[in-house]
């Protein structure tokens, strides 16, 4: 259970939990934390590399925030180790850790100006005044807020506050920057802007970022690697593409992107769906023969073919046009949920037409969680 390598991960990929190539900066080793009967963290092990943009992704209550707060020093794990380089982080109080946290609420000091907020951490280091002023100016320019240095947090918009919080954290030049749901308080448009901004900043300042989020789009678009958490355990650690293409289990497959599912069993290297028969699939080698499994087909891998020409037959129940692409919902007899297919441009099918379905790639996963 404590193995960093997720169960059911495809054998073709090198163990993705080990940071590839670059030197490991943060290593979380079998960390556990309980609140009463609730196991918030249950043997979490992760290695995060120097300069990496790493995301902790999971539904609320999965333990991701507890893990982040343990790294920052506001929670003390019951067991396990957290090391940053050669330092034992758990032995240090929060104010001595070379790690900074950007709070979900931003936690800007309301009684201080933007410049004073940013200077706060530098003053604690006892730096000379001139150097503090220089570094504050520099970071204000980096986040594009030079003109607002004298404002109070209350006089700023949500996006501006977020930038101040970020500036306040990166001005300390931490070895590791933790971001707790950094974009959740922003509206949709600003959020998209800030996603790009965060990536740009991460490249520019060269700090390792660990971001906690429940939003898979956010994690997928920003992170180099993602750890998917559920029930206080790591379900899978992989690059966004790997997570999407080769989910370790049903939970990951469902949580990342949208997916079509068929329940069945694995038999002699093939996926067999009851009442349908053998179906084309990958990844059956990871599943013990005879065990219950699910076939996962991504909407863009699903092809609509003439009735009777595919693996499955169904009836179009809904067509949604989304600009660049359309989503076609197909009701398949015997299946509870309709199958969703993404087709480029305008869909040729209309509601009520009978179609066949086939796919080029599909992955088989089990319901076994880590």
């Amino acid at each position, binding site marked *: 259970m404590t193995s960093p390598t997720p169960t059911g991960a495809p054998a073709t990929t090198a163990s993705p939990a080990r940071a590839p190539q670059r030197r490991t900066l943060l290593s979380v080793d079998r960390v556990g934390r309980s609140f009463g009967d609730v196991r918030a963290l249950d043997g979490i092990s992760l290695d995060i590399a120097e300069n990496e943009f790493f995301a902790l992704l999971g539904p609320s209550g999965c333990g991701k925030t507890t893990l982040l707060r343990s790294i*920052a020093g*506001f929670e003390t794990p019951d067991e396990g180790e957290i090391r940053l380089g050669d330092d034992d982080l758990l032995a240090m109080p929060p104010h001595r850790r070379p790690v*900074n*946290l950007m709070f979900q609420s931003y*936690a800007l000091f309301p*009684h201080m100006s933007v410049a004073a907020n940013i200077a706060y951490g530098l003053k604690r280091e006892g730096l000379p005044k001139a150097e503090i002023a220089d570094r504050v100016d520099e970071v204000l320019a980096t986040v594009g807020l030079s003109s607002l240095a004298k404002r109070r947090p209350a006089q700023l918009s949500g996006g501006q506050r977020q930038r101040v919080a970020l500036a306040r954290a990166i001005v300390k030049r931490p070895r590791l920057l933790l971001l707790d749901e950094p974009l959740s308080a922003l509206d949709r448009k600003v959020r998209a802007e800030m996603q790009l901004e965060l990536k740009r900043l991460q490249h520019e300042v060269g700090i390792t970022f660990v971001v906690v989020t429940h939003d898979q789009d956010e994690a997928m678009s920003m992170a180099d690697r993602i750890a998917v958490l559920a029930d206080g355990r790591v379900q899978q650690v992989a690059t966004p593409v790997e997570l999407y293409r080769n989910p370790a289990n049903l939970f990951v497959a469902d949580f990342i992107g949208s997916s079509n599912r068929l329940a069945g069993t694995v038999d002699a290297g093939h996926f067999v769906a009851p009442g349908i028969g053998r179906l084309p699939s990958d990844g059956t080698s990871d599943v013990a023969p005879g065990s219950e499994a699910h076939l996962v087909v991504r909407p863009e891998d699903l092809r609509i073919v003439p009735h009777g020409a595919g693996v499955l037959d169904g009836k179009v129940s809904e067509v949604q046009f989304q600009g660049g692409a359309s989503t076609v919902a197909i009701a398949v007899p015997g299946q509870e949920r309709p199958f969703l297919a993404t087709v480029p441009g305008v869909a040729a099918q209309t509601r009520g037409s009978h179609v066949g379905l086939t796919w080029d790639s599909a992955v088989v996963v089990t319901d076994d969680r880590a």
Partner: protein
Amino acid sequence: MADTVTDTASTRRATTRYRPRTGLGWLWLPLALCALFLYIPIAVLVGMSFNDGGSAFSWDGFSFRWYAELAGDEVLRQSVLTSLMIAAGATVVATVLGTLLGVGLARHTRSKALETAAMAPAILPDLVLAIGLLAFFFVAGIPKSALTILLAHAAFGTAFVVAVVRARLTGSDASLEEASRDLGAGGFTTFVQVTLPSIAPAVVAGALLVFTLSLDEFVIAYFTAGPTTHTLPITVYSMVRTGVTPEINALATVLVAISVVVVVVAARAVRRTEKS
């Protein structure tokens, strides 16, 4: 003229349209009655303080006579001074202890027992507290004096400051303090730089509360006073026993004036700290 059609349509709709009420409506009546009930006694008192006659209840013409008498009253002046000193001392002690206790209760413990113990002096009947303190000072061998009153007032004043400060902190997010720690500040710096500024209005409010409560507190002061210490309420009490003179009205008017000034100044100070 093109508007005519839409106009008639919208006016017809307007007659049934809901509008949020902006005025008080009939609610002005209870409001006015409450105001009358609260302020008429004070108005009468202030008015009668300018009464030329010797009775507190019948008007004999305008005069500053009782104010002059008040100014010349050595006993009264001494007791005002004693009361002010006790109130100031009790305020300092209670504000410091109460603020620390309030922060501690809100941030560093979940103990309900400790919370109840801290609040008890504010909730207990004054008489119980007075007798308890009297017994304590006797057992501890502390002679009764202005200092014992000060300590007694600080004891219940602390509870009030705790209540105000804690309320302010429980309503606020602990992430500000965590952010300060995260940015490299130790516990003490965090308290001075972040916690204290954010609770400043509550601390000022608590201090004011203690000062005013101490100034007119009678029961506890009466029990813990030494034979020669007379606070203002004790002096006034002994004056009233020999008959109410308009001099007391004059004194009350002066106290009202001082209270108004103090409250206005404090409110301004709080608003300033909140703005900055």
